[in-house]
């Protein structure tokens, strides 16, 4: 069990809803992931077109999950703030996954715009989930702005590269032991998610690794297991790595050696 504000959450896997091969595949993936939080977005829609957005909402609105709207595609603090307010109107939630993109090629967050938007949105009553880099000082500024959760990236969105800088993620965990930390973006394999959980992260958020799998619902189940086992390992207390060998089998009593006093008596 972990929590964001007053909200208690069991599942430590947050799932994006984009790029699934079919609505059924998405629904089955949500179910098999065990997630309690799915991310959604907002896009232009013509009333005279196919109304894909309305159909998408019909498909998910009654599922037993919370929605976390994002501000994907925003390139300035003002765009992100406006989109967040529109999301609150649309989805009736004060949760917002805050994205302010600074670079097209990497989709790297713009930390300056991110902090600016976060300050405004916290004042406006939002629970801000900032999608950020693994930079310690940016993380601190976001907390100073009133964010109660942080979502550092593992690698660029959709890259599937996994934890490219685990030491930085580890540092964030050690510096902010009480803050809910979610690895968001770059997770490609269940082992990546497990590694994030073994660092003591509270949850992971992923999308493409599931939606682009040959069998998305099966991959969702695999991620659910990886996240659960990674957390279990962390809670059980992981051994510290050493640069030298320590025999696990007792040395006393081994064959082909002179008897010790203890063995002779």
């Amino acid at each position, binding site marked *: 069990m972990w929590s964001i504000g007053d909200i208690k959450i069991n599942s430590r896997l947050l799932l994006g809803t984009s790029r699934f091969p079919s609505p059924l595949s998405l629904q089955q993936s949500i179910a098999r992931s065990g997630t309690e939080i799915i991310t959604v*977005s907002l896009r232009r*829609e013509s009333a005279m077109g196919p109304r894909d957005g309305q159909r998408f909402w019909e498909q998910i609105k009654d599922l037993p999950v919370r929605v976390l709207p994002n501000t994907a595609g925003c390139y300035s603090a003002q765009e992100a703030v406006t989109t967040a307010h529109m999301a609150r109107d649309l989805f009736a939630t004060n949760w917002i996954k805050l994205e302010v993109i600074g670079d097209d090629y990497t989709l790297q967050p713009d930390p300056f715009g991110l902090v600016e938007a976060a300050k405004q949105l916290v004042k406006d009553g939002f629970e801000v989930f900032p999608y950020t880099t693994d930079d310690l000082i940016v993380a601190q500024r976001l907390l100073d702005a009133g964010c109660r959760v942080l979502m550092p990236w593992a690698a660029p969105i959709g890259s599937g590269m996994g934890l490219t800088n685990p030491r930085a993620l580890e540092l964030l965990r050690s510096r902010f032991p009480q803050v809910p930390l979610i690895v968001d973006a770059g997770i490609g394999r269940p082992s990546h998610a497990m590694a994030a959980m073994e660092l003591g992260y509270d949850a992971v958020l992923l999308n493409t690794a599931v939606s682009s799998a040959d069998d998305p619902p099966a991959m969702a189940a695999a991620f659910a297991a990886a996240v659960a086992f990674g957390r279990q390992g962390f809670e059980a207390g992981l051994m510290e790595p050493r640069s030298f060998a320590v025999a696990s089998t007792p040395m006393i009593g081994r064959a082909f050696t002179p008897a010790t006093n203890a063995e002779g008596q």
Partner: protein
Amino acid sequence: MQIQVNGQPHQVTATVSLQQLLLDLGYQNLLVAVAVNKRCVHRGDLAATTVEAGDQIEILAPMAGG
């Protein structure tokens, strides 16, 4: 007068409200959020907000996202 709706030019009669504009465009009973000139106009304010010449109006719907 001319306005823009989701990036497309659009003609409206003067003094139309945002709520009326949405009806005219066929958005009745659809779940959408509205912004005018990059500012969100909350649902409760749509009827009282008048469309002005040159307004840039965004009408957004739910969509899948990561």
